[in-house]
């Protein structure tokens, strides 16, 4: 049905409806000679009369109720979650249900947590996946490892993590009657895990004893790291909405109860409460009978000091020691975030001070306190006597001064770390929307706002430089290259003033600029910058320092981009050696090997690339299981290699395996599945199975249209593939509308001056050329060429190809002089490329020979005939 038919149907329907029923039939047969339309109107009239459309007339409530009735807990046994199968229920917690799950291939056990009352909207599901991958990168002996995560078809998030058999922290201490020192050491291990998460810009948000399990061997595991965040929106007010159900009020900081911005300081508070409970056996504030509104004033009051409620098991402690523990604990859980320990680092430092009997940083800096502390530490050395007293006082003064200086340093350092962390966290929260070009705009707005903050930091130039570099990196990632440029240069200038020449921070700035230059396609400058960064690192840092290795990887990318595959290979081989020395296959090493495999592929070393990809495939399978997208990536590469080697059936087999994995992992309606279909489609083309290829590409297109809507570059690219196949098969009536839609999409997304638009117009020109409609073809090719010239560097390969296509059109139109000019211009551009598009060079030579022949320029014609013969 099209719009006209629908108008016609409606018109007939309304007119017939107004007639008495017995006249309708004759009216219809008189007015309408299309039996399909008449039949439809007849059915509609009947439906209208009957007034009993099954769902449209029933109250939707009943339907909604049946569909949304999820009394039964999700995750019945046998349901699959990635490579995991559910075995049995372990328990139900505040956030959801926990099952014991087993990984099919390894038979290893894991805990599966399915969140309750949470359902991510389709647009957030993919983002969720990528955030989970970030969490899965968090490795720490005291953090329960996150293995996998995903969403059920209805959007309910699930997580698979290390299965830990142990007791909750407080329960463990109670049963084992753990000593004070033992308790503090356990607490310190928890704090250390939290510190590790904070360094990766992950705030736990739901710390409590039941999220800390102690195993039989006395080691601790922090559970649910970073998971609470998944249920919160990305704006503070969204948190108000969801906040209360995500946390456990007894351990929640006042700012969390108020629904304000949370941060690392929120976790510090919860750690304070946990310590309080370890010392007293009870939580500081009993909130169990209060409603949310009453909780906030309650937690704003200072609780009883831990010493007043001390556990009997901890009797025997000196009064001075209790005084320190009171200060430590109450500083950590101060209602005002500004007066808490500013970082977990600072909290750990004071735990260590306490364990060593040294003065606390949190203690008010009074001489009497320090004296008392000093006396306790040097009880035997404090002897009555003038000399002794003098020595003693001198020592106190010395100590006090040195401590104050040291503490200021530490504070400055931690304040700086804190600032960078908070800042990053804020950015990351706002950056949750980086799903596409539209959303990255929001991210850059956020970065812009961050920039204002940074400019006001003049008094802290080191932190300012760090943040400028961070922001510059973010701008680079989001494609705002000009802004990135000015920020990264500003960071470099500041560091050159702050640090001695050639020190590592300066090298870091050079490397960041080098990465930006790569994005800007200024490869010479990128190479120079990265080279000097590397040279500085090699002078100052061990060869396997992560910064040095990262710079090497960036340089290798420059080599790859410029087609210097051998140099990229040499550099990556060296990097891989440094990364692999005596260690497991780390994610970094795998990334290097992946780059190495690609470069070998581009360099035409198909066998080496093949064996590297096989190594990667095995490593990925070991690490992530059979059904992981990384495995699919490796299979895709193996497929591409077989394709290059001409083993098309083999290639198809790999691409199909890859597609199966991707499809199962991401589901049908996912862009990754569409990519998989496209790759199989391309493989089929090589086997001359055009119709099957076209069918797959149409499937891919349908998926992308469902996911992105009809006006998105990914949709355009799928249409372009379809147009390409149809064009090859001379199905111009399929190719033309496809290409026209591509043009429409690029025009609305990228505007009039983007080279992608040029490519699309040029493709459409090809259709007209083949149809021998030279006037229109010429017009389109000239339009495309004008866009290329405006958008690209003068020697860009696309400009060359544009000239050659235009030349061929003119040649067919028998305008030999102009044809020769265009083909020649294109030819000159292409042969200057380090990696020329061979088929176009050949086409140019053939056209030039023909054009010069027709123009009677025999010498020139012969030259190109010779070149043609030499190269084939």
């Amino acid at each position, binding site marked *: 049905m099209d719009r006209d038919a629908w108008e016609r*149907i*409606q018109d007939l329907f309304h007119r017939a409806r107004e007639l008495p029923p017995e006249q309708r039939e004759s009216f219809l047969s008189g007015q309408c000679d299309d039996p399909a339309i008449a039949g439809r109107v007849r059915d509609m009239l009947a439906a209208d009369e009957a007034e009993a*459309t099954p769902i449209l007339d029933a109250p939707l409530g009943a339907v909604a109720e049946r569909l949304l009735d999820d009394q039964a807990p999700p995750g019945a046994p046998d349901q699959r979650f990635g490579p995991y199968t559910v075995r049995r229920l372990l328990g139900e917690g505040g956030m959801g249900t926990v099952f014991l799950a087993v990984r099919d291939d390894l038979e290893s056990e894991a805990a599966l947590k399915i969140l309750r009352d949470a359902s991510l909207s389709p647009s957030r599901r993919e983002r969720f996946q990528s955030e989970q991958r970030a969490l899965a990168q968090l490795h720490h002996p005291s953090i329960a490892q996150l293995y996998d995560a995903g969403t059920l078809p209805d959007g309910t998030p699930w997580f698979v993590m290390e299965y830990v058999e142990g007791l909750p922290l407080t329960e463990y201490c109670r049963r084992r009657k753990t000593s004070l020192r033992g308790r503090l050491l356990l607490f310190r291990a928890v704090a250390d895990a939290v510190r590790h998460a904070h360094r990766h810009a992950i705030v736990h948000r739901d710390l409590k004893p039941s999220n800390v399990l102690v195993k039989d061997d006395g080691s601790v595991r922090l559970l649910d790291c970073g998971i609470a965040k998944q249920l919160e929106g990305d704006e503070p007010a*969204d948190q108000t909405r969801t906040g209360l159900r995500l946390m456990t009020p007894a351990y929640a900081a006042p700012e969390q109860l108020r629904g304000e911005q949370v941060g690392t300081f929120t976790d510090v508070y919860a750690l304070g409460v946990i310590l309080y409970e370890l010392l007293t056996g009870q939580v500081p504030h009993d909130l169990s009978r209060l409603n949310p509104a009453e909780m906030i004033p309650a937690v704003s009051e200072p609780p009883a000091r831990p010493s007043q409620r001390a556990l009997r098991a901890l009797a025997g402690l000196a009064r001075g020691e209790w005084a320190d523990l009171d200060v430590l604990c109450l500083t950590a859980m101060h209602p005002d975030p500004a007066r808490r320990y500013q970082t977990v680092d600072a909290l750990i430092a004071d735990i260590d001070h306490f364990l060593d009997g040294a003065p606390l940083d949190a203690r008010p800096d009074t001489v009497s306190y320090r004296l008392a502390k000093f006396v306790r530490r040097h009880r035997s050395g404090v002897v009555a006597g003038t000399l002794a007293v003098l020595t003693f006082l001198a020592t106190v003064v010395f100590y006090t001064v040195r401590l104050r200086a040291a503490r200021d340093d530490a504070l400055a350092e931690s304040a700086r770390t804190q600032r960078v962390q908070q800042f990053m966290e804020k950015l990351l929260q706002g950056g949750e929307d980086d799903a596409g070009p539209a959303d990255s705009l929001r991210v850059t707005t956020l970065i812009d706002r961050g920039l204002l903050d940074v400019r006001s930091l003049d008094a802290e130039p080191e932190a300012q430089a760090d943040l400028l570099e961070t922001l510059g990196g973010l701008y680079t990632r989001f494609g705002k290259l000009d802004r990135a440029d000015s920020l990264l240069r500003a960071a470099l200038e500041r560091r050159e003033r702050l640090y001695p020449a050639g020190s590592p921070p300066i090298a870091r700035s050079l490397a960041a600029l080098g990465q930006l230059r790569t994005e800007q396609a200024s490869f010479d400058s990128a190479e120079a910058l990265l080279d000097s960064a590397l040279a500085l690192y090699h002078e100052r840092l061990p060869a396997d320092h992560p910064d040095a290795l990262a710079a090497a990887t960036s340089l290798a990318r420059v080599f790859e981009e410029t087609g210097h595959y051998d140099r990229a290979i040499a550099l990556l081989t060296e990097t891989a050696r440094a990364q692999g020395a005596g260690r497991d296959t780390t994610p970094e090493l795998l990334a290097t090997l992946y780059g190495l495999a690609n470069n070998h592929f581009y360099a035409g070393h198909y066998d080496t690339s093949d064996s590297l990809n096989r190594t990667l495939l095995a490593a990925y399978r070991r690490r992530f299981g059979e059904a992981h997208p990384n495995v699919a990536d490796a299979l895709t590469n193996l497929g591409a290699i077989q394709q290059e080697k001409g083993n098309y059936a083999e290639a198809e087999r790999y691409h199909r395996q890859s597609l199966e994995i991707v499809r199962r992992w991401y589901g049908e309606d996912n862009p990754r599945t569409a990519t998989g279909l496209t790759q199989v489609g391309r493989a089929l083309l090589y086997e001359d199975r055009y119709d099957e290829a076209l069918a797959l590409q149409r499937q891919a297109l349908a998926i992308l249209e469902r996911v992105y809507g009809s006006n998105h570059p990914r949709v355009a690219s799928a249409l372009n593939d379809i147009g390409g196949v149809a064009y090859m098969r001379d199905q111009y009536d399929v190719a033309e509308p496809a290409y026209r839609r591509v043009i429409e999409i690029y025009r609305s997304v990228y505007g009039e001056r983007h080279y992608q638009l040029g490519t699309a117009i040029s493709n459409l020109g090809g259709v007209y050329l083949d149809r021998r409609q030279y006037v229109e073809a010429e017009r389109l090719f000239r339009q495309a060429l004008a866009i290329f010239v405006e958008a690209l560097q003068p020697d860009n390969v696309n400009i060359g190809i544009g000239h050659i296509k235009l030349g061929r059109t003119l040649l067919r139109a028998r305008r030999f002089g102009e044809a020769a000019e265009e083909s020649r211009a294109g030819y000159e551009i292409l042969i200057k490329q380090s990696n020329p598009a061979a088929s176009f060079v050949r086409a140019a030579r053939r056209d030039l020979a023909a054009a010069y022949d027709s123009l009677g320029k025999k010498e020139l014609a012969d030259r190109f005939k010779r070149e043609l013969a030499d190269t084939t």
Partner: protein
Amino acid sequence: MADDRAALDHLFSLAYEELRRLASVVRRNDPSITLSPTALVHEAWIKLADSPAVGHTSPLHFKRIAARAMRQVLVDAARHRKAEKRGGGRALVTFDEALDARLESAEQVLALHDALEALAQVSPRQAEMVEGRFFGGLEVREIAEMQAVSEATVLRDWRAAKAWLSTEMGSR
């Protein structure tokens, strides 16, 4: 324009997640409460009105987005139900009447969804109208205001659309 799109996506996500959450919370707290999508959409508006993302949105615009979200929530739930059946995890409950009813509802929602998609191809305005009225509980007056047409036009278009959808769904 890109900013609008992002804001719209964000609004949609908020509405979707809030509706889904409300639905299960309401049910768990009191299973006897009837889940009317209209009431849910209204409830969601009350909850979200103070959030900055929603703050400068008109109630009418929000309802329109929420209707879209409600439709998606139900379609997702329907697909879930069908998958559940296919998954075979509950093979023993074949004779469970409740399950049959759920499946039937799932089929109906999916049929309506597909028919609406087809309608949107020829008349996006009418499809939006049905969506707003059916999934968001928008009044005729509100739809007329939203689409800048008279109430009589809305009623007339609604009648044709409904008759067409009903034949379209029946023919599946």
